[in-house]
């Protein structure tokens, strides 16, 4: 069929390029596999809550004394950590319920913390004003907190007990008053 083909001469040494190609194949294969098995989202169910440092909006410190709020400061209190954004429609559905719950439970050792995800100050403040929100709120600068909590969108809410542990799993999507009351009961000090 192919008279021009030279007769095969056995070579002992595998050629350099075969090794290079092999490495390339392994690299790409490994990469594909790694991308698939990488943890897409930390579960963060019933485990210690990652710490966070939130710089609060000027007028929305919720009576907090310092400019920055950390989770460590809130030991001994139950924390409702809510991620939201002013451009997020579902967030508006839960905003009133959150504020009402905060007013109801704030004297019972429950703190609400709002983390504003990928947002802008003027719009965020308009949103806070619109829903008359009074609990501490601050922007998530460079999405550091959102990344630590591996949020996939807004709204997402975590319920953290006085020992600094997340109780149950994250709540994805807007919260209703009933569910909120039920989850808060679990973190009551």
């Amino acid at each position, binding site marked *: *069929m*192919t008279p*021009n*083909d030279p007769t095969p001469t056995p070579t002992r040494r595998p050629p350099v390029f*075969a090794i290079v190609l092999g490495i390339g194949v392994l690299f790409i294969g490994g990469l594909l596999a790694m991308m*698939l098995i990488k943890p897409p989202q930390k579960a963060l169910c019933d485990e210690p809550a990652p710490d966070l440092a939130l710089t609060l909006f000027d007028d929305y410190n919720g009576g907090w004394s310092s400019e920055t709020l950390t989770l460590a400061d809130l030991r001994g209190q139950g924390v409702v950590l809510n991620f939201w954004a002013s451009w997020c429609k579902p967030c508006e559905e839960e905003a009133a319920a959150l504020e009402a719950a905060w007013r109801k439970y704030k004297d019972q050792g429950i703190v609400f913390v709002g983390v504003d995800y990928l947002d802008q100050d003027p719009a965020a403040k308009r949103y806070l004003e619109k829903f008359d929100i009074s609990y501490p709120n601050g922007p998530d600068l460079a999405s550091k907190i959102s990344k630590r909590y591996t949020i996939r969108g807004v709204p997402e809410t975590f319920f953290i007990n006085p020992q600094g542990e997340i109780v149950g799993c994250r709540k994805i999507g807007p919260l209703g008053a009933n569910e909120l009351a039920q989850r808060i009961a679990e973190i009551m000090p």
Partner: protein
Amino acid sequence: MTDLGFIALVLAFVISLYGIAVSLIGARRNLPELVASGRNAIYVVSGLVAIAALLMWRALLTSEFQLEFVYSHTERNLPTLYKFSALWGGQAGSLLFWTLLACILATSATWFFRQQQPSQKPYINSVLLLYIGFFLSLLLFAENPFSRLWRSATGEVITGVFPPTGATAIVPSDGQGLNPQLQNYWMVLHPIGLYLGFVGMTVPFAFAVAALITGQLGNAWIKMIRKWTLVPWLFLSIGILLGSQWAYIELGWGGYWAWDPVENASFLPWLTGTAFIHSIMIQERRGMLKVWNMVLIWLTWELTLIGTFLTRSGVVQSVHSFALSAVGPMFAAFIIATMLGFLALLIWRLPLLKSENQLDAVLSRETSFLTQNVVFVVIMAATFLGTIFPSISELVMGDKVSLNAPYFNRVNGPIFLALLVLMGAAPLLAWRRSAPETLRKNFLAPIIAALVSVPLLFALGNRSVAGFVGIAALFFVFAGIVQEYVRGVRARRQATHETLPVALANLVRRNGRRYGGYIVHVSILLIALGIIGNEFYQSEGQANLAPGESVTVANYTLTYRTLDAVRGPNYTEFRAVMDVARNGRPLGQIIPTKNVYNKNSEQPMTEVGLRPGPIEDVYVVLAGFDNMGATASFKVYVNPLMSWMWAGSLLLIVGVLVSAWPRRSPATAEAARRVPSGAQPIA
């Protein structure tokens, strides 16, 4: 009735496995009956897949909403064309469509080559069936287009082909509608082109595998698959260009290519495929680069899969991306297995892949082709890295960066310029070696043309350095091609005394491969011209206007008149009517619109108001409006030379057709009789 589609898929899957088995056993034991049975399996599998696809189409067209796919991708009011094209509007359906195209291709290739290469047949058939079987397994085990909606005993909505115990069928009264972005003519055609290009690369790949397994590694397989590579390459190119056209008129940002992961996924195999169709010429003529060609077709084929994997597994996010699904792990496993398999074959056959010739001179056609090949692969590698880099950085650093158009332009822009220059230089270099005298003779006119372009552009008012460089490169390449044609025609006329048009026609007819190739090169120049125009000379402006007010961008003044609402079948169209004038001279109207779809009112679609022209396009986007059009916001772009990009796209088709058109001239017939296979012809 529609359940038959599922049964057809199951049967097709079983028969494709059977076909692989009998082909391989038949080849080993040398039993032609089994090999023939394996070949027939391709026909049977194709028939079954066709039945499944037709049933799916029937379900889509008759709105069988109990099927989950029909429910989530169509609605009653969807125009028929889009009901038809909804097949490739979602993951499961597009995999079925993909399988159908693979079957059509496998069937036509099997029939086309029915007389040739009997010893390689079983292996070719096995590879084709393996490919089809893999896609069938995706359809059966990961994304079943025939799964239905059920309500379980506990009231949950679940999907599945068979009802779980106690479940009742749900038949929704209407579907959720097709993604508005896909309700566009270009978007109907674009995936067909891409998919044909993707699946088409399987044929040359199958031949390469068969050549490796049988050890028949001469030029025979290269010659046979040249056209079977050119045609998928053409489809891939058309698919990419249709996608650009869609982005241009539908996305409304004045551009045509955003280096989005899905776009890159189609571009990667195009790059290696282009390198392949060039480098096989060297193997045909000079018996060199045998290993390299194997690697290139392997890469091209794997890249069609890797690109699909990246965009369909949810690993890389993109505007077009499909939701996370079980398709990812299956794709990854298939890619890794085929990569290792082919690598093993290649290393096993390495001793047979010795080059028959050596390089004679540094300045030769061979070297320029090699350089071009390397450059293509470098662009591929850079683009590949750029595409997956956000995922890598998320993996390693836990922090996602984004790589957008500026990154790719900065990295690939200069490499493309080098490629353009190479495209001009390669045809001017002779095979084997170029004498200094020839070099001077061949390069003189193109270099003069490039130099002349600079003052010419300056006189036209150009001050952009990148523009000077780009346009000079275009002049250089174009002059080289014209020179080739002029010499060819002159040589013919001297020898035959034909008239000029006859000589030209005969020249192209007799040497379609060469002169068709040059036509393709010219089409690339035209596309590059459009890119340069859009990239370096675009003007834009945005303004909020009340009726009667106007905005001026470049030489154009656009006056906003009215805003109308027009009801379409499943959407409402908001049409802003504007008068256009160039330097005060009225040119007519331009109507940018915004479509609000009934089922997707939160995702209004832009329809650009376009006034194309040979020099420049006026391109208007209705960005927003207020109080029933009391004020409206418009973005206006003036995009120079864009029309040439689309003209180039058409010329590309012409060029490939000229180059691949079957020629049964007495010359080739006679040559085929005389020359033993494996010898190298001149042209």
